[in-house]
Protein backbone atom coordinates (compact mmCIF):
# COMPACT_ATOMS: atom_id res chain seq x y z
CA UNK A 1 0.00 0.00 0.00
CA UNK A 2 1.20 3.46 -0.84
CA UNK A 3 2.06 5.89 1.89
CA UNK A 4 -0.91 8.13 2.31
CA UNK A 5 -0.27 11.81 2.66
CA UNK A 6 -1.81 13.50 5.67
CA UNK A 7 -4.31 16.29 5.34
CA UNK A 8 -4.93 19.53 7.14
CA UNK A 9 -6.93 22.71 6.85
CA UNK A 10 -5.06 23.88 3.77
CA UNK A 11 -6.36 20.92 1.85
CA UNK A 12 -9.87 22.28 2.25
CA UNK A 13 -8.88 25.10 -0.08
CA UNK A 14 -7.07 22.84 -2.48
CA UNK A 15 -10.12 20.59 -2.68
CA UNK A 16 -12.47 23.51 -3.09
CA UNK A 17 -10.37 24.97 -5.87
CA UNK A 18 -9.90 21.74 -7.76
CA UNK A 19 -6.20 21.56 -6.98
CA UNK A 20 -6.13 18.06 -5.52
CA UNK A 21 -5.26 15.16 -7.77
CA UNK A 22 -8.00 12.54 -8.15
CA UNK A 23 -6.10 10.09 -5.91
CA UNK A 24 -5.61 12.69 -3.21
CA UNK A 25 -9.20 13.75 -3.55
CA UNK A 26 -10.46 10.29 -2.57
CA UNK A 27 -8.15 10.14 0.43
CA UNK A 28 -9.14 13.68 1.34
CA UNK A 29 -12.83 12.78 1.28
CA UNK A 30 -12.14 9.82 3.56
CA UNK A 31 -10.23 12.09 5.93
CA UNK A 32 -13.01 14.65 5.88
CA UNK A 33 -15.50 11.97 6.91
CA UNK A 34 -13.60 11.56 10.15
CA UNK A 35 -13.41 15.28 10.91
CA UNK A 36 -16.64 17.08 11.70
CA UNK A 37 -14.82 20.35 12.38
CA UNK A 38 -13.12 20.30 9.00
CA UNK A 39 -16.40 19.40 7.29
CA UNK A 40 -17.99 22.44 8.84
CA UNK A 41 -15.10 24.63 7.79
CA UNK A 42 -15.20 23.25 4.28
CA UNK A 43 -18.93 23.95 4.05
CA UNK A 44 -18.38 27.44 5.34
CA UNK A 45 -15.68 28.27 2.79
CA UNK A 46 -17.82 26.84 0.03
CA UNK A 47 -20.74 29.01 1.08
CA UNK A 48 -18.55 32.13 1.37
CA UNK A 49 -17.29 31.49 -2.12
CA UNK A 50 -20.85 31.06 -3.37
CA UNK A 51 -21.78 34.35 -1.72
CA UNK A 52 -18.92 36.12 -3.52
CA UNK A 53 -19.84 34.57 -6.84
CA UNK A 54 -23.52 35.29 -6.56
CA UNK A 55 -23.27 38.86 -5.37
CA UNK A 56 -20.46 39.79 -7.74
CA UNK A 57 -22.19 38.13 -10.69
CA UNK A 58 -24.60 41.05 -10.74
CA UNK A 59 -21.73 43.38 -11.62
CA UNK A 60 -21.35 41.78 -15.01
CA UNK A 61 -24.79 42.96 -16.02
CA UNK A 62 -24.05 46.56 -15.16
CA UNK A 63 -23.95 48.63 -18.27
CA UNK A 64 -20.54 49.40 -19.64
CA UNK A 65 -19.86 53.13 -19.32
CA UNK A 66 -19.61 54.97 -22.61
CA UNK A 67 -15.97 55.82 -22.09
CA UNK A 68 -14.97 52.20 -21.62
CA UNK A 69 -17.07 51.16 -24.56
CA UNK A 70 -15.37 53.75 -26.76
CA UNK A 71 -12.03 52.50 -25.65
CA UNK A 72 -12.96 48.98 -26.54
CA UNK A 73 -14.18 49.97 -29.98
CA UNK A 74 -11.68 52.59 -31.02
CA UNK A 75 -8.46 51.75 -29.28
CA UNK A 76 -5.80 49.94 -31.16
CA UNK A 77 -6.79 51.44 -34.50
CA UNK A 78 -4.26 54.16 -33.90
CA UNK A 79 -1.63 54.78 -31.27
CA UNK A 80 -2.86 56.16 -27.99
CA UNK A 81 -2.83 59.88 -28.61
CA UNK A 82 -3.17 62.95 -26.54
CA UNK A 83 -6.48 63.83 -28.09
CA UNK A 84 -8.13 60.76 -26.77
CA UNK A 85 -6.45 61.12 -23.42
CA UNK A 86 -7.98 64.55 -23.10
CA UNK A 87 -11.35 63.28 -24.19
CA UNK A 88 -11.04 60.52 -21.71
CA UNK A 89 -10.38 62.87 -18.84
CA UNK A 90 -13.42 64.89 -19.84
CA UNK A 91 -15.53 61.78 -20.11
CA UNK A 92 -14.35 60.64 -16.71
CA UNK A 93 -15.16 64.03 -15.25
CA UNK A 94 -18.59 63.94 -16.85
CA UNK A 95 -19.22 60.46 -15.50
CA UNK A 96 -18.22 61.70 -12.09
CA UNK A 97 -20.67 64.57 -12.31
CA UNK A 98 -23.44 62.23 -13.33
CA UNK A 99 -22.62 59.97 -10.42
CA UNK A 100 -22.72 62.95 -8.11
CA UNK A 101 -26.08 63.98 -9.49
CA UNK A 102 -27.48 60.53 -8.99
CA UNK A 103 -26.21 60.42 -5.45
CA UNK A 104 -28.30 63.40 -4.55
CA UNK A 105 -25.78 66.19 -4.77
CA UNK A 106 -23.51 65.00 -2.03
CA UNK A 107 -20.66 67.10 -3.18
CA UNK A 108 -22.68 69.48 -5.28
CA UNK A 109 -20.65 72.52 -6.09
CA UNK A 110 -17.78 71.43 -3.93
CA UNK A 111 -15.98 68.56 -5.53
CA UNK A 112 -15.00 70.59 -8.54
CA UNK A 113 -13.22 69.20 -11.56
CA UNK A 114 -9.97 70.58 -10.23
CA UNK A 115 -10.44 68.56 -7.06
CA UNK A 116 -11.17 71.60 -4.93
CA UNK A 117 -12.16 71.11 -1.33
CA UNK A 118 -13.98 73.46 0.96
CA UNK A 119 -11.59 75.55 3.02
CA UNK A 120 -13.36 74.41 6.19
CA UNK A 121 -12.71 70.75 5.42
CA UNK A 122 -9.08 71.43 4.68
CA UNK A 123 -8.77 73.38 7.91
CA UNK A 124 -9.96 70.44 9.94
CA UNK A 125 -7.84 67.86 8.17
CA UNK A 126 -4.86 70.21 8.43
CA UNK A 127 -5.41 70.47 12.17
CA UNK A 128 -5.64 66.72 12.43
CA UNK A 129 -2.41 66.14 10.53
CA UNK A 130 -0.64 68.84 12.54
CA UNK A 131 -1.86 67.37 15.81
CA UNK A 132 -0.70 63.97 14.66
CA UNK A 133 2.75 65.30 13.80
CA UNK A 134 3.12 66.94 17.17
CA UNK A 135 1.91 64.15 19.41
CA UNK A 136 3.03 61.10 17.45
CA UNK A 137 6.58 62.39 17.75
CA UNK A 138 6.21 62.77 21.52
CA UNK A 139 8.18 60.32 23.61
CA UNK A 140 6.90 60.79 27.14
CA UNK A 141 3.52 62.48 26.86
CA UNK A 142 1.91 61.04 23.78
CA UNK A 143 -1.52 60.95 25.41
CA UNK A 144 -3.31 62.65 28.26
CA UNK A 145 -5.27 59.62 29.34
CA UNK A 146 -3.88 56.17 28.67
CA UNK A 147 -5.63 53.16 27.20
CA UNK A 148 -5.62 51.43 30.58
CA UNK A 149 -8.40 53.85 31.43
CA UNK A 150 -10.29 53.28 28.23
CA UNK A 151 -13.83 53.74 29.53
CA UNK A 152 -12.96 56.94 31.27
CA UNK A 153 -11.07 58.20 28.22
CA UNK A 154 -13.94 57.55 25.83
CA UNK A 155 -16.57 58.91 28.21
CA UNK A 156 -14.60 62.04 28.91
CA UNK A 157 -13.84 62.82 25.26
CA UNK A 158 -17.43 62.05 24.23
CA UNK A 159 -18.73 64.53 26.78
CA UNK A 160 -16.31 67.25 25.86
CA UNK A 161 -16.64 66.88 22.10
CA UNK A 162 -20.39 66.42 22.35
CA UNK A 163 -20.95 63.22 20.40
CA UNK A 164 -20.84 59.57 21.28
CA UNK A 165 -17.32 58.49 20.42
CA UNK A 166 -15.72 55.10 20.39
CA UNK A 167 -12.01 54.42 20.44
CA UNK A 168 -11.92 51.96 17.53
CA UNK A 169 -10.27 48.63 18.14
CA UNK A 170 -7.57 48.51 15.46
CA UNK A 171 -5.79 45.42 16.68
CA UNK A 172 -6.92 43.53 13.60
CA UNK A 173 -4.58 45.84 11.65
CA UNK A 174 -1.84 45.59 14.25
CA UNK A 175 -2.42 48.88 16.07
CA UNK A 176 -2.96 49.12 19.81
CA UNK A 177 -4.70 52.03 21.46
CA UNK A 178 -2.26 54.14 23.45
CA UNK A 179 -4.83 56.63 24.74
CA UNK A 180 -6.13 60.02 23.77
CA UNK A 181 -6.27 63.71 24.39
CA UNK A 182 -8.50 66.74 24.15
CA UNK A 183 -7.57 69.45 21.66
CA UNK A 184 -8.97 72.84 20.64
CA UNK A 185 -10.48 73.16 17.17
CA UNK A 186 -12.08 76.35 15.93
CA UNK A 187 -13.34 77.35 19.37
CA UNK A 188 -14.68 73.87 20.10
CA UNK A 189 -13.29 70.68 21.52
CA UNK A 190 -11.74 67.95 19.40
CA UNK A 191 -10.53 64.48 20.37
CA UNK A 192 -7.47 62.57 19.33
CA UNK A 193 -6.97 58.85 19.84
CA UNK A 194 -3.42 57.63 19.32
CA UNK A 195 -2.43 54.12 18.23
CA UNK A 196 0.86 52.32 17.87
CA UNK A 197 1.92 49.15 16.11
CA UNK A 198 4.64 46.74 17.30
CA UNK A 199 7.38 48.49 15.30
CA UNK A 200 6.47 51.87 16.74
CA UNK A 201 4.51 53.36 13.85
CA UNK A 202 1.80 55.63 15.12
CA UNK A 203 -1.50 56.66 13.67
CA UNK A 204 -4.21 58.82 15.16
CA UNK A 205 -7.94 59.32 14.81
CA UNK A 206 -9.01 62.92 15.15
CA UNK A 207 -12.64 63.92 15.62
CA UNK A 208 -13.69 67.56 15.37
CA UNK A 209 -16.77 69.62 14.64
CA UNK A 210 -17.36 70.66 11.06
CA UNK A 211 -20.08 72.28 9.02
CA UNK A 212 -23.33 70.35 9.33
CA UNK A 213 -24.65 68.84 6.16
CA UNK A 214 -21.25 68.38 4.59
CA UNK A 215 -21.22 64.63 4.33
CA UNK A 216 -18.47 63.06 2.26
CA UNK A 217 -16.98 59.72 1.41
CA UNK A 218 -13.38 58.94 2.21
CA UNK A 219 -10.91 61.47 0.92
CA UNK A 220 -7.17 61.27 0.86
CA UNK A 221 -5.18 64.24 2.08
CA UNK A 222 -1.48 64.42 1.47
CA UNK A 223 1.18 67.03 1.76
CA UNK A 224 4.80 67.09 2.77
CA UNK A 225 3.83 66.95 6.44
CA UNK A 226 1.80 63.78 6.31
CA UNK A 227 -1.02 61.69 4.97
CA UNK A 228 -4.58 61.26 6.14
CA UNK A 229 -7.92 59.82 5.17
CA UNK A 230 -10.88 61.85 6.28
CA UNK A 231 -14.63 61.90 6.01
CA UNK A 232 -17.37 64.11 7.30
CA UNK A 233 -20.68 63.05 8.65
CA UNK A 234 -23.46 64.70 10.61
CA UNK A 235 -21.49 67.72 11.69
CA UNK A 236 -18.29 65.92 12.57
CA UNK A 237 -15.07 65.46 10.66
CA UNK A 238 -13.07 62.29 11.20
CA UNK A 239 -9.43 62.05 10.20
CA UNK A 240 -7.12 59.06 10.38
CA UNK A 241 -3.57 60.34 10.04
CA UNK A 242 -0.21 58.62 9.92
CA UNK A 243 2.98 58.23 7.94
CA UNK A 244 2.30 54.69 6.81
CA UNK A 245 1.55 53.39 3.31
CA UNK A 246 -1.67 54.68 1.85
CA UNK A 247 -3.29 51.32 1.55
CA UNK A 248 -2.64 50.39 5.14
CA UNK A 249 -3.90 53.74 6.32
CA UNK A 250 -7.04 53.28 4.26
CA UNK A 251 -7.61 49.90 5.89
CA UNK A 252 -7.37 51.54 9.29
CA UNK A 253 -9.70 54.36 8.23
CA UNK A 254 -12.21 51.80 7.03
CA UNK A 255 -12.03 49.85 10.23
CA UNK A 256 -12.45 53.04 12.27
CA UNK A 257 -15.35 54.20 10.16
CA UNK A 258 -17.23 50.97 10.65
CA UNK A 259 -16.72 50.90 14.36
CA UNK A 260 -17.70 54.52 14.79
CA UNK A 261 -20.81 53.84 12.74
CA UNK A 262 -21.66 50.74 14.74
CA UNK A 263 -21.03 52.57 18.00
CA UNK A 264 -23.40 55.42 17.34
Amino acid at each position, binding site marked *: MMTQRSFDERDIHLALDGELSPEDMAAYQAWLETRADMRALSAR*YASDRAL*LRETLAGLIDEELPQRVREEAISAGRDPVGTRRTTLRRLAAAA*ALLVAVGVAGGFWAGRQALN*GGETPAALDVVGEAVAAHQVYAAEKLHVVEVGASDRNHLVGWLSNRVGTKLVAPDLRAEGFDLMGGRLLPSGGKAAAQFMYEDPVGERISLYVAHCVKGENT*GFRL*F*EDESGRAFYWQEEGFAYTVAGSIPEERLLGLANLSYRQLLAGR
Partner: protein
Amino acid sequence: MEKKRNGPAEAGRGMDGKRKAIVGEIPGLRRYARALLRDADAADDLVQDCLERAFSRLDNWQTGTSPRRWLFTLMHNLFVDGVRARKRRSELVAGAKLDTQEVTRAPEQNGVLDLQDVLDALQEVGSDRRAAILLVGVEGMSYAEAAEILGIPTGTLMSRVARGRQDLREILDVARRRRILKAVE
Protein backbone atom coordinates in the same frame (compact mmCIF):
# COMPACT_ATOMS: atom_id res chain seq x y z
CA MET B 1 -2.75 23.19 -16.37
CA GLU B 2 -5.01 26.13 -16.75
CA LYS B 3 -8.76 26.17 -16.78
CA LYS B 4 -10.09 27.84 -19.85
CA ARG B 5 -13.55 29.10 -19.34
CA ASN B 6 -13.16 31.82 -21.85
CA GLY B 7 -12.27 30.10 -25.04
CA PRO B 8 -9.05 28.84 -26.52
CA ALA B 9 -5.75 30.63 -26.72
CA GLU B 10 -5.34 33.08 -29.49
CA ALA B 11 -3.33 31.02 -31.91
CA GLY B 12 -3.15 32.42 -35.39
CA ARG B 13 -5.84 35.03 -35.16
CA GLY B 14 -5.46 38.42 -36.75
CA MET B 15 -5.66 41.81 -35.11
CA ASP B 16 -9.43 41.87 -35.27
CA GLY B 17 -9.60 38.46 -33.71
CA LYS B 18 -7.36 39.66 -30.94
CA ARG B 19 -9.44 42.74 -30.41
CA LYS B 20 -12.56 40.66 -30.23
CA ALA B 21 -10.96 38.30 -27.74
CA ILE B 22 -10.01 41.25 -25.57
CA VAL B 23 -13.50 42.69 -25.65
CA GLY B 24 -14.81 39.31 -24.57
CA GLU B 25 -12.80 39.56 -21.38
CA ILE B 26 -14.18 42.94 -20.35
CA PRO B 27 -16.99 41.65 -18.12
CA GLY B 28 -14.60 39.55 -16.06
CA LEU B 29 -12.08 42.38 -15.85
CA ARG B 30 -14.74 44.77 -14.65
CA ARG B 31 -16.02 42.39 -12.03
CA TYR B 32 -12.53 41.76 -10.76
CA ALA B 33 -11.65 45.48 -10.73
CA ARG B 34 -14.82 46.38 -8.90
CA ALA B 35 -14.33 43.70 -6.28
CA LEU B 36 -10.74 44.84 -5.88
CA LEU B 37 -11.46 48.57 -5.61
CA ARG B 38 -15.12 48.78 -4.55
CA ASP B 39 -15.58 52.22 -6.11
CA ALA B 40 -17.29 51.84 -9.49
CA ASP B 41 -15.55 54.78 -11.17
CA ALA B 42 -12.13 53.79 -9.95
CA ALA B 43 -12.79 50.26 -11.17
CA ASP B 44 -13.82 51.38 -14.63
CA ASP B 45 -10.78 53.66 -14.78
CA LEU B 46 -8.62 50.66 -14.07
CA VAL B 47 -10.34 48.59 -16.75
CA GLN B 48 -9.99 51.41 -19.22
CA ASP B 49 -6.30 51.87 -18.47
CA CYS B 50 -5.89 48.16 -18.91
CA LEU B 51 -7.64 48.22 -22.29
CA GLU B 52 -5.56 51.18 -23.43
CA ARG B 53 -2.42 49.36 -22.57
CA ALA B 54 -3.61 46.13 -24.11
CA PHE B 55 -4.58 47.71 -27.41
CA SER B 56 -1.35 49.62 -27.63
CA ARG B 57 0.65 46.46 -27.04
CA LEU B 58 -1.14 43.89 -29.10
CA ASP B 59 2.21 42.78 -30.48
CA ASN B 60 3.43 41.85 -27.02
CA TRP B 61 0.65 39.37 -26.69
CA GLN B 62 2.24 36.01 -27.18
CA THR B 63 0.22 33.63 -29.22
CA GLY B 64 -0.55 30.72 -26.98
CA THR B 65 -1.18 32.88 -23.94
CA SER B 66 -4.84 33.08 -23.14
CA PRO B 67 -6.23 36.60 -23.48
CA ARG B 68 -7.48 36.32 -19.96
CA ARG B 69 -4.12 35.66 -18.42
CA TRP B 70 -2.48 38.40 -20.45
CA LEU B 71 -5.15 41.00 -19.61
CA PHE B 72 -5.38 40.17 -15.93
CA THR B 73 -1.60 40.42 -15.68
CA LEU B 74 -1.68 43.85 -17.33
CA MET B 75 -4.43 44.91 -14.98
CA HIS B 76 -2.68 43.63 -11.91
CA ASN B 77 0.41 45.66 -12.80
CA LEU B 78 -1.72 48.74 -13.32
CA PHE B 79 -3.45 48.15 -10.01
CA VAL B 80 -0.08 48.06 -8.27
CA ASP B 81 1.01 51.22 -10.14
CA GLY B 82 -2.29 52.83 -9.31
CA VAL B 83 -1.67 52.59 -5.61
CA ARG B 84 1.23 54.92 -6.28
CA ALA B 85 -0.61 57.16 -8.74
CA ARG B 86 -3.51 57.71 -6.38
CA LYS B 87 -1.20 59.52 -4.04
CA ARG B 88 -0.94 62.36 -6.46
CA ARG B 89 -4.55 63.34 -6.31
CA SER B 90 -7.07 63.73 -3.63
CA GLU B 91 -10.03 61.69 -4.57
CA LEU B 92 -12.98 59.77 -3.42
CA VAL B 93 -11.47 56.47 -2.57
CA ALA B 94 -14.12 54.39 -1.03
CA GLY B 95 -17.30 56.14 -2.08
CA ALA B 96 -19.03 54.05 0.51
CA LYS B 97 -21.81 56.51 0.96
CA LEU B 98 -22.23 57.37 -2.68
CA ASP B 99 -22.61 53.74 -3.52
CA THR B 100 -24.98 53.14 -0.68
CA GLN B 101 -27.36 55.57 -2.28
CA GLU B 102 -27.31 53.84 -5.61
CA VAL B 103 -27.67 50.33 -4.39
CA THR B 104 -31.03 49.10 -3.30
CA ARG B 105 -30.55 47.54 0.06
CA ALA B 106 -31.87 44.09 0.62
CA PRO B 107 -34.76 43.99 3.04
CA GLU B 108 -33.53 43.82 6.60
CA GLN B 109 -33.47 40.10 6.98
CA ASN B 110 -31.36 38.66 9.67
CA GLY B 111 -27.77 38.41 8.59
CA VAL B 112 -28.42 38.67 4.85
CA LEU B 113 -25.63 40.48 3.05
CA ASP B 114 -26.03 42.38 -0.19
CA LEU B 115 -23.55 43.46 -2.85
CA GLN B 116 -22.47 46.51 -0.94
CA ASP B 117 -21.85 44.52 2.22
CA VAL B 118 -19.77 42.03 0.28
CA LEU B 119 -17.74 44.76 -1.46
CA ASP B 120 -17.17 46.43 1.91
CA ALA B 121 -16.10 43.16 3.47
CA LEU B 122 -13.63 42.52 0.65
CA GLN B 123 -12.05 45.91 1.22
CA GLU B 124 -11.15 44.82 4.72
CA VAL B 125 -9.12 41.93 3.42
CA GLY B 126 -5.55 42.99 2.57
CA SER B 127 -5.18 43.66 -1.15
CA ASP B 128 -2.76 40.79 -1.79
CA ARG B 129 -5.09 38.26 -0.22
CA ARG B 130 -8.12 39.93 -1.76
CA ALA B 131 -6.66 39.56 -5.25
CA ALA B 132 -5.88 35.90 -4.57
CA ILE B 133 -9.33 34.90 -3.37
CA LEU B 134 -11.00 36.80 -6.19
CA LEU B 135 -8.91 35.34 -8.99
CA VAL B 136 -9.27 31.81 -7.71
CA GLY B 137 -12.69 31.85 -6.08
CA VAL B 138 -14.61 34.17 -8.38
CA GLU B 139 -12.75 34.20 -11.68
CA GLY B 140 -12.21 30.46 -11.41
CA MET B 141 -8.50 30.47 -12.12
CA SER B 142 -6.12 27.68 -11.27
CA TYR B 143 -3.49 28.36 -8.62
CA ALA B 144 -0.80 28.30 -11.29
CA GLU B 145 -2.64 30.81 -13.44
CA ALA B 146 -3.41 33.19 -10.56
CA ALA B 147 0.17 32.95 -9.26
CA GLU B 148 1.51 33.86 -12.67
CA ILE B 149 -0.81 36.85 -12.96
CA LEU B 150 0.20 38.11 -9.55
CA GLY B 151 3.85 37.36 -10.19
CA ILE B 152 4.28 35.16 -7.12
CA PRO B 153 5.19 31.50 -6.48
CA THR B 154 2.30 29.04 -6.33
CA GLY B 155 3.03 28.33 -2.67
CA THR B 156 2.61 31.99 -1.81
CA LEU B 157 -0.62 32.12 -3.77
CA MET B 158 -1.87 29.07 -1.90
CA SER B 159 -1.24 30.67 1.46
CA ARG B 160 -2.82 33.95 0.38
CA VAL B 161 -5.95 32.09 -0.66
CA ALA B 162 -6.12 30.28 2.68
CA ARG B 163 -5.44 33.38 4.77
CA GLY B 164 -7.66 35.58 2.65
CA ARG B 165 -10.60 33.25 3.10
CA GLN B 166 -9.96 33.07 6.80
CA ASP B 167 -9.92 36.89 7.00
CA LEU B 168 -13.05 37.16 4.92
CA ARG B 169 -14.85 34.61 7.06
CA GLU B 170 -14.26 36.66 10.19
CA ILE B 171 -15.18 39.91 8.48
CA LEU B 172 -18.40 38.42 7.13
CA ASP B 173 -19.30 37.19 10.59
CA VAL B 174 -19.00 40.72 11.92
CA ALA B 175 -20.97 42.11 8.98
CA ARG B 176 -23.77 39.61 9.57
CA ARG B 177 -23.91 40.41 13.24
CA ARG B 178 -24.22 44.06 12.34
CA ARG B 179 -27.03 43.21 9.94
CA ILE B 180 -28.85 41.38 12.67
CA LEU B 181 -28.46 44.32 15.00
CA LYS B 182 -29.84 46.63 12.34
CA ALA B 183 -32.79 44.36 11.75
CA VAL B 184 -33.56 44.29 15.44
CA GLU B 185 -33.42 48.05 15.86
